[in-house]
């Protein structure tokens, strides 16, 4: 590897980061295993950092690394036991080493000065026997508010500012941990008994100059890390591409030679015609030579085409793969976080990571970091019991927090599962009623899923006590918002006394998806495989009519069908002979979409739809196929929801059609709500009051419905997947045709700022779900429709 382009200081930084990470991971493992044989790699790491620091003049790092190395030697030789207090000190030292890798070269002298006292103290502590295990609980900082946007990675956040209100990575949070209180005085070491001087905490808040120089992003284009394996393969493939291209030159030369032979043959013909001195044999030989050459060239050309096709396909996949990173990249700090937080809470817990090699798009990975950190902290604080409680319930002393990733049905599923106390759904029900978020009758009918959804409301917490770590009900709503932003979902499964699992379902990538290419109305569309159950080829004769609706028997099941061209509003050939049925996964039942045919399966690179087009119902994005043909990527969820709704309404072909006259005499209300129960209650209330009610299951579904049909009023929830209520109302207000439609927002969020946010977004009225109890909701709807119609 050529390192000529890097300065010595660059090399130091790379080395300190790499060995620092090894130290951090190794120390946590060491503490859990207390096995001295694990110490050796740690000694090597400290030693390497010491050597590199000496070269670049990082004196304080040399001092610290030296002290750490000495201490590790004693641990290895079993001259002292491996106790948590010692591991705390070594981890603190590791944090400083890692932090030194973020310092700009010009700021090294300042950093040395700023950290001299703290490092001297820490080095001194490392030379003394460690304090007893029970006296070394580190304090834990208050739970940071998790924000949807996070810094790229823990290692790249070089400015662990203690005053920042912005999002922080787990590494930042850990770096801000105050000095260890050392209530167990170490014999013959008065200095170690006193709390570390305040200089220690300055390591987390370096002088402004250091912070400003180390965090300034490089001007110009952003850069991403690509695995060297990927880059090597890309280079190899592009090299092969060049070689293949050159083969064409040789083929061209051979083609010219064939032309020359062909001209010779023509000459022979001419001579034969004129002078008759050319025999049939001469002609046959000349012709045979040309035929042989053509056959050889044709074979070569076919081989070339095959190789080129394979090459370009591999190149395409490799380029896509460059966007992917292993899930483990986002888990680097989890064992450390679990270890430190458990100790701070006097709990015993360890992390178990699974599926670290699962490939995830780097954009998703970045978005995942904050929710993941929050859920880990949440599990430690609320899910996992104290040592005494676990002992009392006969559980294993050490709790396990499992963080796993897997690909399931084309989605990335990330689970954070603890074996703690679980969530008491009875208490959750009581809390919902107590906070007047719903009626006892409604709560009694709610499914577990609907109940646990309340946990994601802002300000909603079932914790008995607010701790420094969590319990204020802040955070889970942000977790949900972040997950929704990338088109994912989050749910909770819990069993009292057994534990709780938070399950996030996320797209594996935002840029590439595996899709079935189908033809609708004679044009290609991509249907994401993750949303499909299967594809079946049918004859047109296989279609049946059940109560006037299209159906077909597929795999011993009669499934309802809708015509794809009709659903998409595209004129198609309804009477074509053979057709294919794409079965979509919907919540309630299988729905078949009739398409003209199935064209194959491909990875399509997602290109966002041109903003100038606005929202196109049922289409999520576009892509260019490998053949160069444009393909539109369908939003299968929206299609399934819309088809189901339109079948119910009777506005799709074959469905029992209602009389438009009868419909138009009643006002039409669109209910946009993701909770099945609440949606149904609203629908029933409004229907009973005489309104014609359509429902949409989330903001995007609602927006699509508004594009298709005219409504006199929209009743919308606030928190919903894909597009939330605020965004929906903003879109309505920005749309010329819809701007005047009254929108009533109904939400559990009853804080004044939530109400204001709704009204500022453009809602005509903002009601809390308590409005179901009386006539407030119906009166508001009636008043607004009357005002709008008048």
């Amino acid at each position: 590897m050529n390192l000529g382009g890097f300065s010595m200081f660059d090399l130091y930084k790379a080395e300190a980061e790499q060995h620092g990470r090894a130290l951090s991971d190794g120390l946590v493992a060491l503490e859990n295993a207390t096995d001295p044989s694990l110490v050796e790699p740690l000694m090597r790491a400290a030693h390497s950092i010491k050597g590199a620091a000496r070269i670049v003049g990082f004196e304080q790092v040399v001092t610290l690394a030296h002290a750490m190395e000495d201490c590790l030697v004693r641990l290895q030789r079993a001259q002292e036991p491996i106790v948590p207090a010692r591991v705390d000190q070594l981890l603190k030292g590791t944090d400083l080493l890692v932090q030194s890798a973020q310092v700009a070269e010009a700021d090294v002298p300042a950093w040395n000065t700023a950290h001299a006292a703290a490092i001297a103290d820490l080095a001194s502590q490392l030379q003394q026997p460690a304090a007893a295990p029970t006296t070394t609980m580190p304090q834990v900082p208050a739970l940071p508010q998790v924000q949807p946007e996070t810094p790229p990675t823990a290692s790249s956040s070089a400015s662990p500012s203690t005053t920042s209100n912005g999002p922080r990575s787990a590494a930042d949070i850990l770096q801000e941990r105050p000095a260890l209180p050392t209530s167990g005085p170490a014999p013959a070491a008065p200095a170690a008994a006193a709390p570390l001087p305040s200089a220690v905490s300055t390591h987390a808040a370096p002088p402004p100059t250091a912070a400003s120089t180390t965090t300034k992003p490089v001007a110009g284009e952003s850069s991403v890390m690509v695995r060297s394996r990927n880059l090597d393969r890309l280079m190899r493939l592009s090299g092969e591409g060049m070689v293949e291209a050159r083969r064409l030159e040789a083929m061209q030369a051979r083609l010219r030679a064939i032309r020359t032979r062909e001209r010779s043959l023509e000459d022979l013909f001419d001579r034969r015609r004129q002078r008759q001195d050319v025999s049939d044999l001469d002609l046959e030989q000349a012709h045979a030579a040309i035929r042989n050459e053509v056959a050889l060239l044709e074979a070569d050309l076919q081989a070339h085409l095959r190789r080129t096709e394979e090459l370009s396909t591999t190149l395409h996949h490799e380029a896509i793969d460059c966007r992917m990173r292993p899930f483990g990249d986002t888990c680097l700090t989890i064992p450390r976080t679990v270890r430190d937080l458990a100790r701070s809470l006097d709990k015993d817990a360890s992390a178990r990571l699974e599926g670290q090699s699962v490939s995830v798009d780097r954009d998703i990975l970045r978005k995942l970091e904050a929710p993941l950190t929050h859920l880990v902290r949440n599990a430690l604080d609320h899910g996992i019991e104290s040592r005494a409680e676990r002992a009392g319930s006969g559980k294993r002393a050490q709790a396990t927090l499992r963080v796993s990733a897997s690909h399931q049905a084309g989605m990335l599923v990330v689970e954070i599962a603890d074996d703690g106390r679980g969530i008491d759904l009875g208490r959750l029900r009581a809390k919902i009623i107590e906070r007047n978020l719903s009626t006892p009758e409604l709560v009694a009918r709610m499914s577990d899923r609907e109940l646990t959804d309340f946990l994601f409301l802002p300000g909603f917490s079932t914790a008995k006590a607010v701790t420094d770590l969590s319990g204020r009900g802040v955070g889970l709503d942000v977790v949900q918002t972040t997950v929704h932003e990338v088109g994912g979902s989050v749910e909770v499964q819990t069993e009292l006394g057994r534990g709780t699992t938070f399950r996030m379902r996320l797209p594996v990538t935002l840029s590439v998806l595996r899709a079935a290419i189908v033809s609708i109305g004679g044009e290609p569309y991509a249907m994401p495989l993750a949303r499909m159950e299967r594809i079946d080829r049918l004859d047109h004769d296989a279609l049946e009519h059940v109560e006037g609706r299209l159906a077909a028997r597929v795999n011993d099941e009669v499934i309802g069908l809708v015509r794809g061209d009709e659903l998409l509003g595209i004129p198609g050939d309804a009477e074509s002979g053979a057709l294919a049925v794409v079965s979509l996964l919907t919540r309630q039942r299988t729905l078949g979409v009739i398409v003209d045919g199935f064209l194959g399966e491909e990875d399509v690179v997602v290109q966002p739809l041109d903003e100038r087009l606005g929202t196109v119902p049922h289409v999520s994005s576009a892509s260019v196929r490998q053949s160069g043909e444009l393909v539109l990527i369908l939003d299968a969820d929206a299609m399934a929801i819309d088809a189901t709704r339109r079948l119910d309404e009777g506005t799709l072909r074959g469905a029992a059609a209602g009389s438009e006259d009868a419909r138009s005499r009643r006002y039409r209300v669109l209910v946009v709500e993701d909770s099945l129960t609440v949606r149904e209650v609203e629908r029933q209330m409004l229907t009973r009051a005489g309104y014609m009610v359509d429902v949409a299951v989330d903001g995007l579904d609602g927006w699509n419905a508004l594009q298709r049909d005219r409504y006199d009023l929209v009743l919308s929830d606030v928190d919903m997947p894909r597009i939330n209520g605020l965004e929906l109302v903003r879109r309505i207000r920005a749309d010329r045709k819809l701007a005047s439609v009254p929108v009533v927002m109904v939400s559990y969020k009853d804080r004044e700022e939530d109400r204001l946010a709704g009204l500022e977004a453009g809602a005509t009225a903002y009601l809390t779900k308590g409005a179901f109890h009386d006539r407030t909701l119906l009166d508001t709807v009636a008043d607004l429709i009357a005002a709008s119609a008048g």
Partner: protein
Amino acid sequence: MADPGATGGHARTERNMTDHRPLTAAELDANAEAFARVIERERATDVHAVLARVGSSWIAVPAARVLRVTRAVKPHRIPHRSHRALRGLANIEGEVAIVMDLASLCGFSWSPTGDDAARMIVLGERGAAWAFEADEVPGTVAGNSQDLLAAPLTVAASGAGFTTHLMPCATGHAGILDVDALLAACAEAVRA
């Protein structure tokens, strides 16, 4: 044997290259006149346009506004969008462009022939391009703005108003498009 002619030619070239005698007043005047002729010739062609045929109409698109001209591809229709001027989307050299129907925008009826001569003219900006189909795009045409003619009353009064002037060309006259007005109409059409 050496070629004497070649040697002589070489010698003459050397002599010319080292010949730095001052030019006479007459030579200077002749040079100035030659330059003036060049400038005049350039001034005479201050309008450059890409010539396209849509049905029986010849259209001149200001060359500076044309991003590229490519072989025509059939656009992909867009679900739930039925504006007659919106033909669909197409992959134009890796970029997804919105394809508009120039004839519809101008108010006349036309269907693309789809034969080998058919081309697409891409206008606008990279990343926000508009593509228009044409039956053929034979090349560019240059002319002098002073030779342009006003659009006939039937065109000016049609309401579409994308033709600012008429430009003489080999086939008669081509209507020079007001690209800004055309693109504004496109933006309006896709929002509808």
